[in-house]
């Protein structure tokens, strides 16, 4: 193909502008508007930085900031090691070997994702406490109880890792199952053994997938508030809460948020760099079935234990502890008020899931209908909220909306209306925040289903004289239904589990199950926290299993 010269008439500024004018349509404008709307909280954090730090900032920098940074680095480092060990090994074993209960374990390994980290934290704290389950068990077996203190950094790293490793497991397994088969066969044909194949071939090739999972884990680690608070570890998130609620210094919360966002973007850049370095690995998914090795009995037992350990630690033990507590506290916790809270929680989660999926659909289709190429890239900025910790998003929404509310109250007062806080006093701010934070959760499954539909399908609808909206409802929506449905479910689960953002933005008379569990735990009533926790876990579990079945069926 011939090179197009830069001085060519076609690419003169004038003709570019002419084309920009021709190709801009309302969809381009709408896409930009939605992206801007979703990016507002972060933009406000940036703008607020200019109004200077609060009074305590110098004190925080001197006494607390080193702690925040050091603790965050500690968590990032040790969680990375643990989740990589657990996630990659279990993914490799379930996709390459045959052993008892392999099929069940394949989806059991995902279940820890159904338990929010802070609840795993409560359960482990209970197990290792004086008079906790571990002590009772050892006493029953006439053994001495040596107390291990886990209410510290190391304990927190363990708790976060054990509840978050499935992110790495899922992405590594997907790679081992789909991408790697023909390469594995090639390696076998060249006479290379299992161990060398894993370390020399599969591990380097799977690195982008593994890193992608790891970055998700680390974002959750930095997002965590509940577990860190309970374990008494000072992190950026607990710092943001302290400056907001205890010190009542929004400026300081903003500065901490900005620092945290910088760390997050460093993580994202790290991922991009890792993935770009090995772009050549993206080969087509192989069509042949993977052949699993059938090892000796002793080896089978070893593999079984290795794969079972994370399930035991991440799901069975904490859920067991919670069920035990629940039997003790059911009579006091379970009342009409609790049912009301469950219904509220459920209603909030389903409403925000629908809103978020609606925004994702708008973003995906508006940017498709816009004929400007760069709009499609801009649309992806709207998805970045998943990287921003809930506490940061909450601060970024709280500050401008409080100002807006103040203004609204004044305006309405002129008309003799006593409105109260319109945005912050109601659920509007909360729904907005969930949409910002979980847009990616809705966007990705829908986007990947739309990619499976060949462009020629909507194109032929248009050539037949049918416009964008009608094409969407008649042709595209029926074909992406499953993707949309899984998006709704995934956002629903995430909202059910969400804690930091909800704590900051919820109207005072509204409770969710997550907030209730947190309140019990903070009030030294961790046993009572078990019932709302189990409710969250079971509502999250049903769709997790259901979705997994749906994915396997496909």
């Amino acid at each position, binding site marked *: 193909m011939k090179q197009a010269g830069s001085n060519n008439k076609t690419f003169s500024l004038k003709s570019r502008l002419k*084309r920009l004018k021709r190709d801009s349509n309302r969809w381009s404008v709408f896409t930009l508007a939605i992206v801007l709307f979703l990016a507002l909280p972060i933009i406000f954090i940036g703008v607020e930085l200019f109004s200077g730090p609060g009074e305590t900032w110098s004190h925080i920098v001197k006494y607390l900031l080193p702690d925040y940074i050091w603790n965050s680095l500690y968590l990032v480092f040790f969680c990375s090691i643990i989740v990589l060990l657990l996630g990659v090994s279990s993914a490799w074993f379930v996709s390459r070997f045959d052993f008892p209960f392999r099929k069940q374990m394949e989806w059991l390994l995902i279940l820890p994702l159904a338990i929010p980290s802070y609840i795993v934290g409560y359960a482990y704290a209970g197990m290792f406490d004086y008079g906790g389950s571990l002590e009772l068990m050892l006493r029953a077996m006439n053994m001495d109880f040596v107390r291990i203190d886990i209410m510290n950094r190391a304990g927190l790293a363990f708790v976060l890792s054990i509840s978050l490793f499935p992110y790495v497991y899922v992405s590594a397994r997907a790679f081992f199952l789909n991408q790697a088969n023909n390469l594995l066969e090639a390696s076998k044909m060249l006479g290379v053994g299992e161990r060398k194949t894993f370390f020399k071939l599969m591990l380097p090739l799977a690195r982008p997938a593994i890193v992608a999972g790891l970055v998700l884990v680390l974002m959750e680690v930095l997002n965590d508030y509940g577990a860190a608070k309970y374990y008494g570890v000072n992190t950026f998130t607990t710092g943001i809460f302290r400056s907001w609620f205890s010190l009542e210094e929004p400026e300081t919360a903003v500065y901490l948020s900005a620092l945290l966002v910088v760390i997050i973007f460093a993580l994202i850049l790290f991922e991009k760099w890792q993935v770009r370095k090995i772009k050549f690995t993206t080969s087509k998914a192989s069509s042949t079935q993977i052949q699993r090795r059938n090892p000796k009995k002793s080896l089978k037992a070893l593999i079984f234990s290795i794969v079972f350990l994370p399930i035991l630690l991440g799901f069975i033990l904490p859920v067991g502890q919670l069920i035990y507590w629940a039997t003790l506290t059911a009579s006091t916790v379970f009342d009409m008020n609790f049912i009301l809270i469950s219904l509220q929680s459920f209603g909030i989660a389903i409403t925000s899931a629908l809103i978020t999926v609606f925004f994702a659909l708008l973003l995906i289709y508006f940017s498709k209908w816009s004929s400007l190429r760069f709009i499609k890239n801009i649309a992806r900025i709207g998805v970045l909220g998943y990287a921003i910790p809930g506490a940061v998003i909450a601060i970024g929404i709280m500050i401008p909306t409080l100002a807006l509310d103040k203004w609204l109250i004044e305006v309405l007062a002129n008309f003799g209306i006593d409105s109260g806080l319109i945005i912050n006093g109601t659920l509007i701010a909360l729904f907005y925040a969930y949409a910002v934070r979980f847009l990616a959760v809705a966007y990705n499954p829908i986007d990947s289903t739309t990619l499976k539909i060949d462009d020629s399908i909507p194109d032929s609808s248009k050539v037949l004289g049918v416009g964008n909206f009608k094409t969407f409802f008649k042709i595209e929506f029926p074909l992406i239904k499953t993707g949309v449905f899984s998006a709704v479910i995934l956002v629903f689960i995430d909202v059910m589990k969400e804690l930091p953002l909800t704590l900051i933005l919820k109207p005072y008379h509204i409770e969710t199950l997550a907030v209730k569990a947190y309140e019990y735990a903070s009030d030294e009533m961790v046993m009572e926290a078990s019932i709302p926790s189990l409710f969250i876990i079971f509502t999250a579990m049903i769709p997790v299993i259901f979705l997994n079945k749906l994915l396997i069926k496909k």
Partner: protein
Amino acid sequence: MLKIESLSKTFDKGKSYALKDVSFDLKVGDVCAIVGESGSGKTTLVRLIAGLERPEHGVIYLDGNEIASMDKFVQPEKRKIGLVFQEYALFPHLTIFDNILYGVSKLKNKKERVQEMLDLVGLSEMGKRYPHQLSGGQQQRVALARALAPKPSLLILDEPFSNLDSMLRTQLRNEVFDIIKKTGVTVLFVTHDTQDALSVADEILILQNGRVVQKDVAENLYINPNTLYVASLFGNTVQINKNIQSAFHCPLNEECCHAIRNEKIKVNPEDDGSDCEYITKAKVLKKIALGDSIQLLLKLDSGEQITVLTQDKNIADTITIGFNSKDILEFNE
């Protein structure tokens, strides 16, 4: 009815051209084939005409109206162009009947129209089936019926036969064009297969690297190709380079490029008494039997290797070959 003026489109943010300065026009009722290798810009060209891409330069007129230019862009759904995609693009969740109905749902007698189209493509009884229940050839005909149902003024077929094996291909090609000829619609037909183009098109447009190399009736493309590339599309050719010129003792204009079709090179011309202006001796390296003829791989005195065809089964190790100056093709390249 279709007029295109210096149309251009680039890829990679203007780094390379998919189409450059393409101009041509079609008259009502024409059947025109667009021929080119993959990557020559064929599909980009028809997508621009259909309104699925936007030009970076140039103007497209349909029935005298400007439908795409620097200031104007008519949406594909307003263009009334029928398009049959390479992969048919039938709506998988709709029945055959509903697929064809889709583009004519605003017509008064829409059901009659759909049935008429089903009858036309010989699938009268298949209306209730879904696309995946049909064979490739049947899906192809449904795609055609769907595109023809709204009575488009222009029908575009984008590589419609490339998914089919060669036996079925010839049969279906004839069927499809029999149907099309009945409707009298103007057709643009994209293919990489010269045979396809030769058998159905009134005119053929050759695209190479995003440029129109030649647009002409089939016969002229054979007799009077504009470039060596066009010549080689319609039969094997040998480029007459300096070495071959010296072997045959035929000095030619150095500023031009010359070629000769393989079938115009005569083997042992003295045997059947035909006269050749330029002759040379050649050594036979290899004989390949192709059924009714024999292909010879020859080595000339100058060291050059060429292939020729002959019917003669008794070929010596060294033979004479020759050609006439009227058969030499000359290009300004």
